[in-house]
């Protein structure tokens, strides 16, 4: 036979949610601790007792329940079973509360693989919630949260959805049997159930306004709200019936008062009726709220679906953290940001663009810009070079004059000549030294067109000499240093010019 897998896995999440409620108790169970007599402490049991303690306190509307009260209660219940003193129980009470209500502030949660939706999911639950607090005495009181109540109910034989109905049934039976005290208690339980339901509706309302991001979630909430609505309607009908029943019972009692006992019963009945009326009116308000939730809130949530991208999009979580936590490469970030840029429009190539004016890659201009800068520098250099060439030529002319027709002259003679002929200022120029150093370096220097082109610095000097001479050579005169000026000395040298032999 074929099994319908869908039916089997349906409501998988809800089931896990219910199972997860027990996690806290098992967490407690795994705490290994020994009492003073080396016996293991029954944390599991103490956990359940704690839940019942808070539940009972809610029933009797005692809000002042903190870890101290719990410790007292546990100590009293214990009655010697666990070998611990009061202090030990206070410690345990705090530990248990910590398990039920993690002090980090994050809720208890359980991750699981959802076989219905086929994905990893997490359910959260909160067993205890912080109630009032007393700042003066620095005390924090607690009460059971939704899931805590659910857990309590799960330990009984019925589910919370039917809790009110069952309570109503029980109440009726109790009234029939005349168990007025327990009937009153039943009404208290009903009241808590109604209150829980109210909290749930408020929560759902907030969730609806906050969480409806897509059609799927909307549908889920819609179903949820409808369920609640149906349930409340059903309960309301039952209340109506119960009301009639109670009224009848009261009337019957009223007419049947014969003795003190009957009167007491009647008084009880009146009280029951009063309280039931209270719970009932509370419940009716709830029904109205759920109808409102079903109509206006859900509807407006659906309408706001269109604006949801703007309103409830968690920019930080969805974009910023995703971009920076990894961090994403630039390309991926672009993709992530794209939805915020433009609406889609398809890009096509225009076949007309084959004729479109093109940006002409202007080679000349490009080169020019490069050249322009170079030219400036080159220009400067050329100018400078020319000046230096002229300067060197000038020195060359002086040397020629100093030679006075001879073919050889020493540096000492040149310096001497210059000193005598008002060229002293040139002597102190670095260029003067450079001139001879260059000659020395280039020697022997052929004075022809070839070297004229090659020797940039000496260009003009060569031009000066090349008509008459064909070669210039420099010979060092060792061990003879001459003082050109105060600042520098040079080794003496002989400069020799070879005349062109025109005859050959």
């Amino acid at each position, binding site marked *: 036979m074929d099994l319908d897998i869908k039916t089997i896995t349906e409501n998988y999440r809800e089931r896990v949610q219910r199972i997860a409620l027990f996690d806290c108790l098992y967490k407690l169970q795994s705490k290994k601790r020994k009492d003073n007599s080396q016996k293991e402490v029954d944390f599991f049991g103490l956990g359940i007792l704690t839940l019942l303690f808070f539940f009972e306190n809610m029933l009797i509307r005692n809000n002042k329940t903190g870890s101290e009260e719990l410790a007292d209660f546990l100590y009293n219940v214990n009655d010697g079973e666990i070998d611990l003193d009061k202090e030990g129980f206070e410690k345990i009470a705090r530990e248990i509360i910590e398990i039920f209500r993690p002090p980090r502030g994050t809720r208890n949660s359980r991750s699981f693989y959802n076989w219905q939706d086929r994905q990893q999911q997490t359910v959260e639950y909160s067993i205890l919630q912080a109630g009032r607090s007393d700042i003066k005495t620095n005390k924090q009181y607690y009460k059971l949260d939704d899931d805590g109540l659910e857990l309590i109910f799960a330990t009984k034989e019925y589910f919370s959805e039917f809790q009110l109905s069952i309570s109503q049934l029980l109440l009726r039976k109790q009234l029939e049997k005349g168990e007025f005290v327990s009937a009153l208690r039943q009404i208290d339980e009903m009241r808590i159930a109604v209150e829980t339901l109210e909290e749930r509706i408020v929560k759902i309302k907030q969730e609806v306004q906050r969480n409806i991001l897509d059609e799927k979630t909307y549908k889920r909430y819609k179903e949820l709200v409808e369920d609640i609505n149906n349930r409340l309607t059903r309960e309301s009908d039952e209340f109506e019936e119960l009301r009639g029943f109670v009224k009848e019972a009261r009337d019957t009692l009223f007419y049947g008062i014969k003795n003190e006992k009957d009167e007491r019963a009647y008084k009880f009945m009146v009280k029951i009726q009063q309280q039931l009326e209270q719970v009932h009116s509370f419940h009716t308000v709830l029904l109205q709220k759920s109808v409102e939730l079903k109509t206006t809130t859900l509807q407006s949530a659906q309408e706001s679906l269109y604006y949801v991208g703007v309103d409830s999009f968690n920019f930080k979580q969805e974009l910023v953290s995703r971009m920076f936590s990894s961090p994403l490469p630039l390309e991926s970030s672009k993709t992530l940001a794209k939805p915020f840029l433009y609406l*889609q429009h398809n890009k096509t190539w225009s076949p007309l663009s084959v004729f479109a004016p093109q940006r002409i*890659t202007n080679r000349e201009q490009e080169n020019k810009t490069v050249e322009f800068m170079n030219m400036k520098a080159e220009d400067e250099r050329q100018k400078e070079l020319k000046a230096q060439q002229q300067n060197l030529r000038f020195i060359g002319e002086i040397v020629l004059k100093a030679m006075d027709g001879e073919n050889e002259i020493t540096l000492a003679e040149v310096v001497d000549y210059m000193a005598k002929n008002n060229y002293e200022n040139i002597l102190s120029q670095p260029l003067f030294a450079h001139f001879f150093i260059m000659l020395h370096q280039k020697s022997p220097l052929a004075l022809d067109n070839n070297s004229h082109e090659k020797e940039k610095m000496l260009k003009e000097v060569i031009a000066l000499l090349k008509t008459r001479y064909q070669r210039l050579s420099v010979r060092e005169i060792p061990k003879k240093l001459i003082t050109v000026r105060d600042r520098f000395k040079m080794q003496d040298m002989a400069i020799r010019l070879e005349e062109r032999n025109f005859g050959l």
Partner: protein
Amino acid sequence: MGYDNNQVTKAFKIYSKLAAGSVAYEEDLKQYLADDNIRALVDQFVDQVDCVLVVAGDLIYMIPKASSSMFHISNETIKKDYLPTNAKNSDIYLMYVATIVLFGEFYDGYQSMNPTRDFITMEEWLSQLNQRIFSINEHGTEKLKELEKKYQYNWIDIIEKWEALDDLKEHVKKQQANVASRLSSLYITKRFLEKQELINDLGNDEIELTQKAKIIVQRYYMEYDFNRGILDFIYGLEEEREDEDAIDIQDTLN
């Protein structure tokens, strides 16, 4: 001219479909053709974004009229999606000239309004493009510089690009788009034009023009306003030197 709300809405619906997909058909086409008001409206919308509508067979295409239109594919996108890495604008320009020559082959040098051939082989296309570029190159660099300014067309870059390539790479068995050769650059162009639904691959290295291409060529390519004399330039020159070129092409092919 008054339009009723219904017509405006319908026209906008057609426009938005065109904007999203650049093509519309069936019902939209029917409405567009049947209702003058709707047609006028859609045409106006499209005109506002620098596009034109081309009805080809049972399709309407929305085509950008100028490269400034926001619907026009950018050069960067062309490079990224169709050209090899490091492609330059000149690669795109070469593609454009190849496209002009390809279309020209179907229209007998743009003399007739109807195609004079049904398909062209890659080889034929290559040889025609060789011929055109050869003849353009005959102008000489100096003249081409002037012509570049006149037509605002990068003739020199295009020629240089083309000249630098071999017709095909001998050692590569399949002449496809990923090797540097003239033929492979034609394959790149072919792939691009196919994606733009302007040509169809008939297989066996034969290609034909699509209806869309034919309409665009007829409506816009022949207009001087659109082709800016570039066609005249490419084809005008060729007539004078046809014989000479033919010989040269023979040589290059052998």
